[in-house]
């Protein structure tokens, strides 16, 4: 049996990266959020937030919709069904790992 910390390596790093995990956690809690909200949540610069969102958009986890409200640009981001499923799966995996870690006894100490 693998030690729990070894299984940590099997976690999807695309989701587990702290900024992206915060973004996906927020997006799965609503229908959509705008760019400013996600920026205030993560504290990332516009460029870095755009890069993270592009990565999530590439794999089909989020959709990015750009509109104009009058002359003001408005970017709305929403999680897709695929993204929602992936986040749920990730949480389940983390939960399993946590429960395993609680009961794990290092070899040779039994």
């Amino acid at each position, binding site marked *: 049996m693998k030690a729990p910390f070894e299984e940590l390596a099997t976690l999807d790093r695309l989701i587990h*990266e702290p900024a992206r995990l915060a973004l996906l956690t927020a997006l799965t809690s609503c229908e959509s959020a705008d760019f*400013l909200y996600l920026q*205030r949540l993560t504290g990332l610069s516009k460029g870095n937030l755009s890069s993270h969102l592009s990565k999530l958009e590439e794999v089909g986890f989020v959709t990015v919709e750009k509109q104009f409200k009058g002359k003001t640009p408005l970017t709305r981001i929403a999680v897709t069904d695929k993204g929602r499923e992936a986040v749920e799966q990730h949480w389940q995996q983390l939960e399993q790992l946590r429960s395993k870690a609680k009961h794990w006894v290092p070899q040779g100490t039994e």
Partner: protein
Amino acid sequence: MSEQQLQRIQFVTTYYDWLQGLRFVPFGLVQLGFAAWLALPRPEGVDVKARMGAAMLVMLGGMLLATALYALVGAYYRRRFGVVRRSATTHQRMQKALMGSTVVGLVVGLVTAWLRKATDFTEPPLTGFLLLSGLAMVWYWDWSGRVARHYLGVAAGFVLLGVLQAVDASPVYALLRTLPFTSDSHGAAVTLTGSWGAAVVIMGLLDHRLLARTLGHEPEPEPDSAPEEVPE
């Protein structure tokens, strides 16, 4: 990123509209103002109905002003923290909770009015109302995901006030008797209106603090060159 932080993100995003606490503070202040007015002694020779009518008009004006401020402060939140569209599920849950609270409020009001007519009690059952208010706050904390601990603090405040009222040691009554310009003839109404007004103000300020802490990250300065490589 800790589980607690993620829970807070979930909570703030789900109830973003309701956590814009500064929008609700004016409503609490109007209620506190009404409680203060109720605490003033009734001047002799003044028509009670006309006095009550004038107070109601002032309160209505206050509520209209609070509603205008609600919209204005909403614009501040949109500009400062952005916009979130709530999901259909959350919307339904919120509507149900609002409907449920309104129905409970109406039933309690009607039962009180009926009791007042059918029996000879003159004062509303204040201890019961305060304990019920405390229970309502605990329910709200539980319903909203058990994240905002300050709801429990407000609930404890209501329960404490209820218990003190039951043992005839209400600080509100004591204050009304001590101050030279107040009377305890409407002590129950002052306690109930004042405690709810204070609860709305306190919760509004603490909700705002929670929201501002969660969304308070000033964006990193833009680098001169291309954005740094984000981890895969």
